[in-house]
């Protein structure tokens, strides 16, 4: 079955079994390997991408659901060579060890800040609870999100 995917602003035609999940289509067909496999059943958030601005677990997202929607992966967050403020904040706070969780964390954080530009500590925990960092970088990741939030506030209006 041929499916049209709009990924990071460009159209891709993917010929795949309709049972294929979005994660596999991105990684194995389009070589966009920034989204990671961590569990395959929606528990870890490593595979997080944005679909129409919302964070979804691509490992349990059927390809059909994503058809025609705007998909953003970690590779598409950079704009004209400039990192997204959340990417910058992750770098500045050193919010990673092995970094395998990082793309999922960043995209979840982008979606969180989109909905709630000024999250409290509890909002961050609630919003990020579905993302596992086995290396335990949680405190830095939370710090990165707070940093990005404070910057966005600074530039708003």
């Amino acid at each position, binding site marked *: 079955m041929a499916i049209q995917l709009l990924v990071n602003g460009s159209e891709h035609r993917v010929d795949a079994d309709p049972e*294929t999940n979005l994660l596999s289509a991105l990684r194995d067909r389009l070589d966009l390997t920034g989204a990671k496999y961590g569990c395959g059943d929606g528990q870890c958030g490593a595979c997080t991408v944005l679909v129409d601005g919302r964070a979804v677990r691509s490992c349990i997202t059927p390809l059909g659901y994503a058809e025609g929607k705007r998909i953003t992966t970690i590779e598409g967050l950079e704009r004209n060579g400039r990192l997204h403020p959340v990417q910058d904040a992750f770098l500045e706070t050193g919010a990673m060890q*092995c970094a395998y*969780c990082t*793309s999922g964390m960043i995209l979840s954080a982008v979606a969180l800040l989109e909905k709630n530009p000024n999250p409290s500590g509890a909002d961050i925990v609630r919003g990020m609870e579905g993302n596992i960092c086995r*290396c335990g970088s949680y405190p830095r990741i939370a710090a990165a999100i707070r940093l990005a939030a404070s910057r966005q506030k600074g530039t708003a209006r």
Partner: protein
Amino acid sequence: MEPERYELRENPQYDFPMDRRDFVRSLGGGLLIIGLVTGLQAQESGRGRRGDQRMPEEMSAWLHIGADGVITVYTGKAEVGQNTRTSLMQAVAEELRTPVASIRLVMADTDRVPFDMGTFGSLSTPVMAPQLHRVGAAARDTLIGMASKQWGIERGALDVANGEVIEKGGSHRIRFGELTRGQELVRTVAHDAPVTPASEWKICGTPVPKVNGREMVTGQHKYSSDMSAPGMLYGKVLRPTAFGAKLVSVDARAAQSMPGVTFVRDADFLAVAAQDPLKAEKAVEAIQAEWKADPQPSSRELFAYLKANIAETQTIHSTGSIPDGMRLGEAALRETYHVAYIAHTPLEPRAALAQWEGDKLTVYTGSQRPFGVRSELAQAFHIPEERVRVIVPDTGAGYGGKHTGEAAIEAARIAKAAGKPVKVVWTREEEFTWAYARPAGIIEIASAVRNDGLLTAWEFHNYNSGAAGIRGIYIVPNERIEFHETKSPLRQGSYRALASTANHFARESHINELAHAVKMDPVEFRMKNLQDARQRAVIAAAAEKFGWGKMKSGCGIAAGFEKNGYVCSAAEVAVDRSTGKVRVVRVVTAFDCGAVVNPDGLKHQVEGAVIMGIGGALFESLEFADGRILNPHLRTYRVPRFSDVPELETVLIDRKDVPSAGAGESPIVAIAPAFAEAIFSATGVRLRSMPLAPNGVKT
């Protein structure tokens, strides 16, 4: 080799180094620094010195400066999230007085880097960093020598800075690349080459950001599981229905008839390759296989099984007489502690991409032991190691759980059958089931203490969980420590801090219990029985930062020593009266691991160890029955998440006068006993099994 490294069975037997002249030529000339693989690096491999004749062949290339001035450094260590790439680059940058960014570090590529036994035991910092300091210093010395000759200026008047040799206070300066251009220079690094003392460090000891951080935040870094090759197929293995099951019969006709599917059978190994992962999954599902397994113990009867299946007993330490010590004491205590099997659960599961060119095999895989995996592959395929190349891209963590090459062997076997490159990525369920676990164990302690708090007897028996960290830090005149190796129902192996976590849990819990028995404060009680000044200093530092003694309930403390690092953890917990749910409110860690190389990286490692420790301490446990894991998913095997993270404070004691020790492991050891004490202080319930409260505390 430490006894609990069960997963390490075979060591590399051969090494066929390339001629170094050819090597420097193949790099386009320049300066090459070579050196011996030092004692500690080779020691466990049985590859020590083999007499002077062989010496030149044992030389390995460590550093190269090309005509373009690019500094390339080679190390067999792998980056698995412990920030080694950055901290090792700092070591070379320090000696060459050049920015970290001007260095390229080639890691864990068996065709290009010096032999290394593996990235474990927290040895990268104490062993590899000093080696790279020596290598960098040798390069600096050579470059200064070259410039001195060229200019006719004596060496003492020259120095290096920013990729140049410069004349101190003079006008001469030349870039490294210009000096080495057109040369084919090979220099040997002396084992005792003078390096920059820690007190003069300018780059080491500073918080250098992760060197490949940008690749990480943009998703550009390729982990093993992200690799691909032209024509690559996806491999999938049909797993037996139980551990140790034997294949009785197989019917693969349905799978074989699927277009584009290759079916592989080699003895009991059954697998397929297909153009996409879904097809491979469906093909594996279509295989009809019948397996036969022997009855196996379940997690419920685990501890009885371990005690009934002792294979060997080692007396680790014995002094004085236990009966005498028990008589001298005024209070005695006898307790048993249990530790469950837990899973490392690296977020990146095992993965490998294998490719054959004729009879030469190249495998990309996430492993902490590239040379060990090379050996495994050579043995599996009966080919010499020189025909196997293992490359480890920076990996999605290991925590001691990726010492073996299962995925590498599987991918290589399938690739051989398919005649194409094959990638195998384990599912989370496979990782939980077919990787190895941190050993479970039973620890029995009998002790006696005088009313003034002095320990008089200490008898300690560990069944199965390992001998690392089994010797205590306290002074006891009558002591007996034994490790009993038993059969293990699950495949088991290294873990962050190995067995030390279990031994510390039992010992430090017991020490807290003894303090209560003689009505002493746990900190005071420890100090009474401790002499080591560094150990005392971390306890004092943690107690002070924590405000020990100021709070009445919910607080616990524990200390330890592991891998030359001294640690003390103080914790505060809150226990919900109605649900029994335990929440860790605050953890203070005081840590002394010698001279601090990268304070920011070190703090991060400590925090990571503490957070990982929360899982093993409170709720992680592998459940099993009939040769199967019963909770092989993140839904049922809970790991720490954002909401589990307490307030964390780290006190680093920077000892510039003491060599740096590794730090990724030690800070985990005192977490569980500190929690057990804090829970006791909050509820009056004494918990002696890890995990302490998978379903809350019943009060």
